[in-house]
């Protein structure tokens, strides 16, 4: 049995960031990175960006580390393998190829998987999901010949893929189960701004419907909705959420909820087992609740903190205000901090759809906790600082509601 001081399961942003951090301090400790993919670290966030898809960015730009980086840093890369069970008492990890690894310290940074359709016809060719480089390549190839596309879902994957499909010249229909785009993270006016951008670009939107069946012989030729409507298409793009692949680790006694549970140091309940990235459901010190956050910046920063904690004697808490941005079809969208809906939230509208610039400032008690920004990304950084500083904004509701008020004035 191979024995390593550090074993990291997951070769994405969180896992590699942890490996890099460990190596900065511990130059000689043996380290293995297990990945379910064969690739060196690549930019998962680039996979959904039109500039990449349409070939404006050279394909190889997607790789953030070369194979030589792992060798130079004496990191054993174990690709195309998944973890299948964990013995936390004897510190042994079993992999899908039958091998076992003994570890002193383990990081579980396995990410999440796409939720897939579970309806008749879901196995046909021409149905796409987007998580891996291979998924991206398949879509890149298909959009060259595709004519008519249907997208399912009202979140960021769908939004970015609609932009791409439109740029690639496909006639596109967007199907949402929800009443408006990005419900319930955004409010209806924000959602309608996005829908207007879509409609202006010739995208047809059908709301509050679900797909009953994917039709066609071996290849998709359309979808039938639950109301009986049939939409012809040769490409079906699904962005219908994610699932956490945690069944294998539950038996080991690692505490889970939706993701793998961790405290603010990203420690799980098992000794010497940490978690980071999309799979981690960690205690967020700023929001004072357990959250699972799926984005690149967050994963990278969590990997760094987990790496520091695995290598050192000092425990570093993960304290970070998350943000996420996207753009397309002439609109920019940014989320900062905690944007989850909740009854205790006070929402202050800032700007309006009428002026094509609309933010929602989210407050709990006297403090700002988050914001959603449509065409106002430039304010994201200031809002992030206001959240971080725990600025008391209780007497500034009118200022926050004034789209021309400079938020920097509240920084003091």
């Amino acid at each position: 049995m191979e024995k390593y001081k550090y074993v990291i399961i997951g070769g994405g942003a969180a896992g590699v960031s942890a490996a890099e951090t460990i190596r900065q301090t511990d130059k000689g400790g043996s380290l293995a990175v297990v990945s379910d993919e064969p690739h060196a670290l690549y930019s998962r966030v680039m996979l959904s960006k039109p500039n990449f898809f349409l070939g404006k960015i050279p394909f190889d730009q997607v790789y953030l580390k070369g194979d030589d980086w792992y060798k130079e840093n004496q990191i054993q890369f174990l690709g195309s393998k998944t973890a299948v069970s964990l013995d936390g008492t004897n510190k042994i990890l079993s992999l899908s190829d039958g091998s076992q690894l003994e570890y002193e310290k383990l990081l579980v940074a396995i990410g999440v998987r796409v939720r897939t359709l579970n309806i008749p016809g879901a196995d046909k060719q021409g149905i796409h999901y987007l998580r891996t480089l291979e998924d991206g390549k398949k879509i890149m190839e298909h959009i060259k010949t595709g004519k008519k596309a249907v997208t399912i879902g009202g979140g960021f994957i769908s939004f970015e893929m609609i932009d791409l499909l439109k740029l690639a010249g496909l006639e596109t229909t967007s199907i949402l189960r929800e009443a408006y785009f990005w419900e319930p993270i955004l409010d209806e006016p924000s959602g309608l701004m996005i829908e207007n951008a879509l409609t202006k670009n010739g995208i047809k939107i059908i709301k509050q419907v679900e797909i009953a069946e994917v039709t066609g012989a071996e290849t998709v030729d359309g979808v039938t909705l639950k109301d009986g409507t049939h939409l012809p298409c040769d490409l079906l793009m699904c962005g219908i959420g994610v699932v956490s692949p945690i069944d294998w680790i539950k038996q080991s006694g690692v505490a889970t909820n939706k993701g793998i549970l961790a405290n603010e140091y990203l420690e799980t309940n098992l000794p010497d087992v940490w978690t980071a990235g999309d799979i981690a459901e960690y205690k967020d010190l700023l929001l004072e609740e357990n959250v699972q956050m799926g984005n690149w910046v967050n994963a990278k920063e969590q990997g760094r903190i987990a790496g520091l904690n695995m290598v050192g004697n000092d425990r570093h808490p993960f304290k970070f205000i998350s943000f996420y941005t996207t753009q397309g079809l002439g609109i920019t969208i940014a989320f900062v901090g905690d944007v989850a809906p909740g009854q205790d939230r006070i929402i202050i509208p800032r700007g309006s759809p009428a002026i094509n610039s609309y933010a929602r400032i989210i407050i709990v008690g006297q403090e700002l906790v988050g914001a959603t920004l449509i065409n106002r990304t430039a304010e994201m950084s200031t809002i992030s600082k206001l959240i971080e500083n725990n600025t008391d904004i209780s007497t500034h509701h009118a200022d926050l509601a004034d789209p021309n008020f400079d938020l920097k004035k509240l920084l003091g």
Partner: protein
Amino acid sequence: MSNIKEYVRQREGSNISKIVIDRDLCIGAASCLAVSGETYNLDNENKAVVIDADSVDDDTLIMSAESCPTKAILLFDKTGKQIFPK
């Protein structure tokens, strides 16, 4: 030529004299802000802009460029040589 923006750096003792943002590559992932909010902001087009080229030391600046998931931040030394990405 692609859509690039150059920012001159004049921090004393620094080996880096220019920061370049390739706006075609930038996707607004904002990882550079996470490393150095003193240096960068995003504009309303979701593209990174340099707000203060002199605020942080060379190590932090290199870390911020390294953090970019599209390698949209380029750093140059005083002789005009590109030092990141290598």
